[in-house]
């Protein structure tokens, strides 16, 4: 059964049709990739799934629920995690605090509880500090725990953002070009992490220009061009499809 079903999804930016009547499904516990040239509408699709900008029309069904009617900040609690194309870590917070923010939707201390420093709030605070430390340990970021996140090298900012997104315990994780700007070695590490995340039960939807990685890890590939879906299928079929080669692969060549 599919975890995510997208029907006739369309997004207009005054005149420009960035996403044009797109349909696809993402099966539970799979890795599904969206590929396509620059400006094809990949990030715009991610934005609509994660609540940053309502679709012009169409519907997004996640876990049996229509998302387009849900308040944007509630999507996280429903199980949608998102990592941005350009890392959006919180530079003024420490590395540990960044991950602690990831537990926001699972905790409750509000203005009054935190202002009064109530015991329940202190307990919650200690609990998520523990959880966040575990996440940092998983990503080998423990020694940078106290540093301001803005001072981390680029590759580690990427990892931190993924660790933070995993803290929300997503059922579906959206990764937007996670290997952009990484060295080949870092890319290899990240690839294995993505597989581990999938094995632990999280469904992954990934936008990626590194095609050899896409074809080696994905179960299913969707190809967008000028906002339209031009093809979808397993990697073996996608890499041989003439239209896809013409629109995208041909121009880039397969690394």
């Amino acid at each position, binding site marked *: 059964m599919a975890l995510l079903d997208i029907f006739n999804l369309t997004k207009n930016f005054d005149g420009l049709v960035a996403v044009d009547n797109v349909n696809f499904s993402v099966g539970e516990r799979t890795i599904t990739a969206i590929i396509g040239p620059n400006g094809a509408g990949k990030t715009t699709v991610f934005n609509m799934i*994660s*609540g*940053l900008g309502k679709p012009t029309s169409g519907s997004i069904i996640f876990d049996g629920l229509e998302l387009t009617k849900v*308040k*944007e*900040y*509630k*999507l*996280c*609690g429903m199980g*949608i*995690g*998102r990592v*941005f194309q350009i890392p*959006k*870590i*919180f*530079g*003024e*917070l420490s590395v540990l*605090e960044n991950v*602690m*923010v*990831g537990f*926001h*939707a699972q*905790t409750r*201390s*509000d*203005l009054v509880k*935190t*202002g*009064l*420093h109530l015991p329940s*709030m202190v307990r*919650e*605070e200690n609990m*998520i500090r523990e959880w966040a430390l575990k996440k940092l340990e998983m990503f080998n970021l423990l020694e940078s725990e106290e540093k301001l996140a803005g001072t981390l090298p680029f590759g580690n900012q990427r990892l931190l953002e993924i660790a*933070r*997104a995993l803290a*929300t315990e997503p059922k579906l994780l959206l990764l937007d070009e996670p290997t952009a700007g990484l060295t080949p070695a870092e890319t290899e590490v990240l690839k294995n992490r993505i597989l581990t995340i999938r094995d632990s039960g999280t469904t992954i939807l990934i936008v990626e220009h590194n095609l050899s990685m896409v074809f080696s890890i994905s179960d299913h590939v969707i190809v967008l061009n000028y906002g339209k879906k031009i093809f979808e299928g397993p990697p073996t079929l996608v890499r041989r499809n003439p239209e896809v080669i013409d629109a995208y692969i041909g121009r880039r060549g397969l690394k």
Partner: protein
Amino acid sequence: MITIRLLLRGLFHKRILTGVGIGVLLVFPFIFSREYLINVSIFTGIFVVLLVGLSLFIGHVGQFSFAQAAFYGMGAYTSSLLTTRLGVAVWLGFLAAGALPGLTAYAIGSLTLRLRGYYLAMVTLALCGIFHVFVTEQYSITGGPSGVYGIPPLSFGKIRVESAASYHYVVWTIAVLSLIFSRNITKSRVGRALKAIEGSEDAATVLGIDVSGYKIKIFTLTGVSAGIAGSLFAHYVTYIAPGNFTLDLSIWLVVILAIGGVRNISGVVMGAGFTTIFPFLLGPYQKYNMLVFGIILVLVLMFLPGGITGVIGRKIEGAKAKLLV
């Protein structure tokens, strides 16, 4: 040499500074028994309460609000009118004084803070104008330009707070508690959420943070704290008039925070102290106060971004680093 170093390091320590501050507040009425000095301390305390919510809002939401004088006035008028006209118990009037501006702030925030852009600044400028017209012209309710007289002193049950010294303790208890409250907020889940929003509203949203909800909550807090300050003011001076709550004050408060530094408790306390003594400092040159103030503001914005406390904070960090070597 070593002892001097230790002493310096001690002085730089926040806890020790706080301890010294609280010690001074405790003995203040005994050492400075002159009425006008106690008044300086009381008004400083009231201004701390007035500024504390605003500093959270400017420092952590990053927008300007010019509603502070109106909320302050609303609090002052609410508890004055309830206690003088309707004979409501003072402590109830005091609570209502926090609630009414709080609700007003919530309503204004809900309408403006969901939009992108700086609508709130404009709407709050207008609110000050509307409030002033209302209290000046609705003679039958507010007493019009001549204001409200004979406001009873604060009392909680049988305990009446009449002497200046006892008022000093009440005001500063509330002021210190509100500073602690705001500090606790910034050091917790809510504070992290606010910093996250500041870093990236999109990233905050996908992590489950209700961005406009938090902005509205913090703005509501500016209303509640200003209202409480207004009530403390009214029950101390026992006479209020529209002239106490004009737009000048709102602008002054925003600017004084920019000068003092919005992110620090010491910025709030310095701002409150400066608000109290500025009129005295200028003495006969009071009519130039806005000019002098304007010049100070420009200089600070040009040379001390982050405010005075921001700069002192960095200097102290630097000195500490050297001393620790």
